[in-house]
């Protein structure tokens, strides 16, 4: 096998050294009745050229243009070439978790930079080294708020990504957590009156997402203020991290009462490809005072014993390898390499580039919405301001499924929001050209 260096001659020498005749003898600890005495039934081994052909064929079966206007938590943004050049360095991608700080300073400093960027963008005090993704991040945020408040009731906007809510349900159901959903208003935002009615002193936290699943920008600071009035925490979820470049961050308000306590989300938009749903990169940011209740790894700045600056994994007494069943989370890993991609992306794009990308997203989305309104019979739902996604409702009856599947762009919302009938969620980013948008609108019009 080409990934095994030792030749048969090497192996014979080593066996002699050990004092056995064959590798078979080394497996004597496995009872004979449990041994597999046949080869595994697997596809036959392929040479490298055969592998190229095998995967090339399957990759080309995916019609990626079909997703040109699908977002829904996974966004297609331009990915600068530099990112792949840098993360393809073995020094980064073949390194282990940086437990041995002296020979992992590269990874550690990069994660420290990631933490800084996320804190800056969200307006929060601190961020961790990343989480698996946005959906599990939101579940972790809810568990964190339960630990801090020792309360179990959570009010969650229905406009939060439906799959994120599904993941939260899976985590929550054995931990005594009750999730109550808050509906949306005709403008496509969380219904704040309903929220105020349902809030009480048993409420641990309120969860809102902005931009929400419909692409609508939520009034996250109002939500925080309402939550805080009832001593509940405020959690803001962000699926579309690019929006942080232009929208007032949930952690950034002059008034403490209007600041979120936890901002959690998905940073896939920062240079990480959609990759059929993963790997992406979750983040979580919070206030200084809650840092010891955070899940996942944290990198801290410190000094070695000669006073040189260095970085190191810190506050690990929260974590499973020390605390076992009393840990803040069962998480062992983060998404280091994807966090590195996001860090490189932000370094490349810079504050001005990020703002320009945001402007292009908003303007192109506005253009698409205007064109659909003017040229087609589709209704654009929800009046509140939007970032780069919007919901359209087809004039065709729901039963016209075939047409819907073949001809229409975007994600059908029926599975998640049956009350919206044959509505679809569309996304337009800086990489969608005007020509592409015009073609899409043309398709809807015909």
């Amino acid at each position, binding site marked *: 096998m080409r990934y095994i*260096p030792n030749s048969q001659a090497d192996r014979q020498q*080593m066996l002699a050294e*050990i004092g056995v005749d064959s590798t078979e003898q*080394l497996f004597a*600890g496995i009872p004979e009745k449990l*041994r597999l005495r046949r080869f595994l039934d*697997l596809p036959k081994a392929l040479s490298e050229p055969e592998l*190229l052909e095998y*995967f090339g064929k*399957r*990759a080309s*079966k*995916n019609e*990626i243009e079909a997703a040109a206007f*699908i977002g829904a938590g996974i966004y297609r943004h331009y990915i600068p070439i530099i990112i792949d050049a840098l993360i*393809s360095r073995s*020094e980064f991608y*073949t*390194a*282990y*978790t*940086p437990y*041995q700080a002296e*020979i*992992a300073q590269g990874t550690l*400093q990069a994660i420290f*930079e990631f*933490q*800084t960027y996320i*804190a*800056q963008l969200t307006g929060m005090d601190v961020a961790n080294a*990343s989480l*698996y993704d946005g959906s599990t991040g939101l579940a972790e945020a809810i568990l964190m708020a339960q630990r801090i408040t020792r309360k179990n009731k959570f009010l969650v906007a229905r406009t939060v990504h439906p*799959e994120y809510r599904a993941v939260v349900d*899976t985590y929550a159901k054995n*931990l005594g957590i009750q999730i109550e959903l808050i509906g949306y208003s005709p403008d496509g935002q969380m219904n704040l009156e309903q929220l105020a009615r349902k809030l009480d002193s048993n409420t641990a936290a309120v969860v809102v997402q902005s931009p929400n699943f419909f692409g609508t920008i939520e009034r996250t600071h109002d939500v925080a203020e309402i939550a805080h009035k009832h001593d509940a925490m405020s959690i803001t979820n962000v699926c579309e991290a690019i929006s942080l470049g232009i929208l007032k961050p949930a952690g950034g308000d002059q008034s403490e009462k209007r600041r979120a306590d936890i901002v959690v989300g998905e940073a896939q938009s920062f240079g990480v490809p959609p990759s059929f*749903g*993963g*790997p992406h990169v979750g983040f979580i940011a919070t206030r200084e005072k809650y840092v010891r209740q955070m899940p996942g790894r*944290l990198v801290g700045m410190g000094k070695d014993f*000669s006073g*040189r600056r260095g970085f*190191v994994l*810190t*506050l690990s007494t929260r974590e*499973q390898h020390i605390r076992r069943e009393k*840990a803040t989370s069962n*998480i062992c*890993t*983060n998404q*280091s390499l*994807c966090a590195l991609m996001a860090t490189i992306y932000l*370094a*490349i*794009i810079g504050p001005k580039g*990020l703002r320009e990308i945001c402007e*292009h997203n*908003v303007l192109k989305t506005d253009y698409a919405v205007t064109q659909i309104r003017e040229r087609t019979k589709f209704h654009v739902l929800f009046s509140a*301001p939007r970032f780069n996604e919007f919901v359209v409702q087809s004039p065709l009856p729901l039963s016209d499924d075939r047409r819907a599947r073949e001809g229409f762009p975007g*994600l059908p919302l029926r599975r998640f929001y049956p009350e919206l009938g044959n509505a679809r969620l569309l996304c337009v980013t800086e990489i969608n050209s005007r020509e592409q948008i015009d073609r899409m609108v043309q398709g809807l019009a015909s």
Partner: protein
Amino acid sequence: MSKQERAAGHFSINESLLFEEGSPGRRAFDLSPLDVPLKQLGDLLDPELLRGEIDGMPELSEVDVIRHFTRLSTWNYHIDLGLYPLGSCTMKYNPKINERMARLEGFAFAHPYSPAEMIQGALEVQKTLEDCLAEISGMDAVTLQPAAGAHGELTGILMVRAYHESRGNPRRSILIPDSAHGTNPASAAIAGYVVESVPSNKRGTIDIGALQRVVNDEVAAIMITNPNTLGIFESEIAETTELLHGHGALVYMDGANLNALMGMTRPGDFGIDVLHINLHKTFTTPHGGGGPGAGPVAVKKVLEPFLPYPVIESKTDGTYSFNYDRPHSIGKIKAYNGQFGMHVRALCYILANGAEGLKEVSEVAVLNANYIRSKLKSAYALAYDSASLHEVVFSDRLQARKDVRVWDIAKRLMDYGFHPPTVSFPLIVPGAIMIEPTETESKQELDAFVQAMLAIDREAQQNPEIVKSAPHTTRVGRIDEAAAARKPILRWRAG
């Protein structure tokens, strides 16, 4: 160091934080010109919604960015540089073709919400990987959704819970041997279970007698690792699974050490009901400096109804689809369907090996570990005499007499050009040194490591100070972790 020795000095360039670099007006990126009508943002978005400048975000040129991260990268040890003898972590070579295949445009830009007919290639890759993992592990069905090993543990235990609930009682506790990974008890706790620890016996394996005393009808499952974290095969595994099954409990296996077993024996054949598999260990997806990993979970038929949704189905016409209609499912454990990029890499590795190749992998992994065992056992105390499979656990007992502890040995190895082994784990071995070389190391590399370990032992006996103050050749010395944790600085701030 003489020139025969492995590590030599080389310059390492200092580099500030990104936030201390940069200069206003530098750019590394240009957008294509806007091709839709320009409007004032204020007309579209209420100014109340907009943010001002992002405080402290640097402006950098392309060369700035390249140099910055390239310099940082040179501060890392990595598998392409040399042996990574981390027990339980299975740091093996990551084949380059895996990377190339995961980056194919049709994979990297596929969207899971595209209509099924537009993503047949991705679904086929996932289904094929599921089938391969089921065969390797001897199980009936696989979910690829969990994002990492610990996430797979949680998924598996939630399925155990759903199984018991479907029979009327979720039961109360999970039994976990004291040699287990810390993630095991943490995952069981999140699934709402009480954790009961089971002691190991003198041979380093599960103590069946002790187990008999604690198992009862309120035990939901036992979580075992096999080979266990000492690298020892649980020879009474069949008796263990029978005992648990006799009480209606299930058996969970932490598949972290599957690298020792491929083609030799299958968890499904020794009574395991559910196990997770770390693709970043046995199946060569890169560790990435701490993730992304991937933790598929394989189950027996009885647990299949409880798999996270969606499940991938293959139809008779050769097409594939996601089935979301799974009434008994534990739900979703992650958005979409797992770390697909890792799935491509793992399948690429399995197909490169085939059945004979994977068996050879396990054989040589075990051979390499035993070679190290035989070379080091006179200088370092073996924690247990039992036969080792893919990893071997020593302790620092012989060096501790000179007050040289496992941590010192680990740090000193860096001066010899090696990453340290896993240390202080498993917890049942005081001063544990856990070495897993993997099959992708040559005899020369193993010999160099052995020489380094023996040299450190000699130093420990003759000149312990040099070991206790190591490392001496790295760009930073030991970081004062206690100080860093007392007043944590977790981000850069201006000023």
